[in-house]
């Protein structure tokens, strides 16, 4: 579940991050969504069959430390630039989901020299509509009991990812991860609400093959938003996945993984 600790640790410029490392081969950096990362994630498990998956908990999330002064998505992107240099990633695949997709896009517009391909899953972060149209549903302060219904096409499957939201039966460490993820997600995403007004006009700088995947039942950012995202990245492919919500890769891991692997092999 999303409140389970990741097995490994790595220090980046004095900041200790939790990290999940799985598989061998070409590196694949996975950037997680705002509610964390499940070390038993089946989508990552499937990718790890072909790739060396590196999936850190972002600074401020899980048990990862939050360095002083890191308060914005731009700060996080610069932090990851240090991480990528330290890991000496080359020819790597960059995958980001939801909030992690925003972060991946912010990294990619700063330069794609280290990366060969980009995959965005139900990403947020860009603004395409007019000033009186809210494109991204409010998920920073969603009442806790409503989270599975908002984030997943099938709330019954979604609630499992949150340990049935049965907090009294969880350990203090698990509850702390949940509370910390929510607070950090809110801090990074607050205003403007889950987007950078400058991002859309900078997406043209992404000069590597890109795949934009979307849950057809995504209730946070609808597939039309995903198509606009794909259109803004030169040559990007859009793919919709049925019976998948905003955290679609968690509920349809095989469908997402097969499409990603097909794209990466192509």
């Amino acid at each position, binding site marked *: 579940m999303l409140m389970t600790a990741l097995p490994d640790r790595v220090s980046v410029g004095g900041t200790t991050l939790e990290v999940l490392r799985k598989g061998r081969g070409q590196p694949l950096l996975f950037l997680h969504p705002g509610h964390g990362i499940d070390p038993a994630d089946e989508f990552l498990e499937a990718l790890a069959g072909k790739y060396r998956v590196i999936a850190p908990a972002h600074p401020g999330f899980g048990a990862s430390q939050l360095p002083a002064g890191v*308060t914005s998505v731009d700060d996080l992107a610069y932090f990851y630039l240090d991480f990528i240099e330290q890991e000496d990633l080359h020819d790597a695949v960059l995958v980001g989901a939801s909030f992690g997709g925003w972060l991946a896009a912010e990294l990619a517009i700063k330069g794609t020299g280290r990366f060969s391909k980009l995959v965005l899953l139900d990403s947020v972060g860009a603004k395409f509509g007019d000033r009186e149209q809210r494109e991204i549903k*409010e998920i*920073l*302060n*969603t*009442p*806790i*009991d409503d989270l599975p219904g908002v984030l997943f096409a099938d709330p019954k499957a979604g609630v499992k990812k949150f340990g049935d*939201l049965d*907090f*009294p039966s969880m350990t*203090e460490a698990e*509850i*702390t991860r*949940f*509370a*910390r993820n*929510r*607070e*950090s*997600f*809110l*801090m990074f995403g*607050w*205003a403007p609400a889950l987007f950078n007004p400058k991002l859309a006009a900078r997406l043209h700088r992404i000069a590597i093959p890109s795949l934009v995947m979307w849950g057809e039942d995504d209730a946070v950012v609808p597939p039309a938003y995903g198509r606009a995202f794909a259109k803004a990245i030169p040559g990007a492919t859009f793919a919709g996945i049925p019976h998948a919500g905003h955290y679609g890769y968690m509920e349809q891991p095989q469908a997402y993984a097969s499409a990603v692997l097909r794209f990466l092999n192509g």
Partner: protein
Amino acid sequence: MEIWQFCEQSMHPAWNNPGPTKVTIPNELCDPVIAHELYNRYLDEWMLGDELGYNIFVNEHHASANCMSVSCTLTLSILARQTKNARLLSLGVPIANRTDPYRVAEELAMIDVISKGRLEVGLVKASPFELAMSNQSPARIMDRYWEGHDLIVKAFTSREPFSWEGEFYQYRNINLWPRPYQQPMPPMWITASSAANGRKIAQLGYVCATFFNGKGTKMLFDAYREEYLKTHGHIAPPTRLAYLGMMVTGHNEAQVAERVAKMKVYLDVQPRTPKEWTNPPGYESIEGNVKALQVGKKGGRLNFGLPPNPSLEQMIDGGIFFAGTPDQIYNQIKKFSDSVGGIDHLLLLSQAGELSHAETVDSLTLFAKEVMPRLKALKSTHEVVTMAAE
């Protein structure tokens, strides 16, 4: 004991509509003709209070049928001119929600000067649902609060222009015109409910106010007294501890019961807050949220910690509502004050819910005549009985 008259300037006719009474309530329900009458009625009641010997306490909320005051300083700027004697307390300006603390200092200083030094400055964290309207982040709210506080204090006390390049606020040139009437600055107030926050306020030497805190008040006040002595080397003066409760009085018990029923409607609407705004992540500490989740609480604190549909006895016993004939109410207040080691400033929500203008005037007048003189004669001493082990 000083007595303060408080009212939230509610648009209570809109409460009959089902659903939240704040944040999302349609402003179609804010009839401007009724709003005009109510604003002026509430101001009239404060002007009466000024004549009766009350001090005045105002607040603000946004997008709310519970409180139509959109700015403490707007309400106080009217009262600064129209009252003569009352101290004027803003409790408070939600500085973590304000993008311009320099402007906050300017408005407060102008009120202090117009009122000839009658201003008391309260700076509050604000309720969680206010963040929906201010659009300021719940995350790091107190970091923003303290930077705003430091800037306002420097603006009040500095006699030369200065620049400010902080994390949250940047200014080329802060130069407060007018400077406050009270030198070096007006009395400062901060609200708290926990002992840790009480200690912080004691260190600053400010007035510590607590709202509807009931049985939790003693722990807070004890912490304040102890920390004050430790920090300043002398016991806290009898002007530092403030408590807010509801109050209504009447000439006989039947009349009191009728008035209580009209006031209690106010308590009933408090939980009518959109649930995503009762406790957005970041508003409470992670430790606080973890503790709440461990016992299965997924939302925020509502209805002042009272049980659902509390009886009057529970509200009186809990120090939430002082209600009775003048003798009864004096005894209730005296007993509660003694139980927390002494209240210096008693803040009274003396109009709420459906209590009419005539009833409010009668209750305020009766209280001022029969109860206030006895309460004013009470003097707290904030001697520290037991020091915690170091």
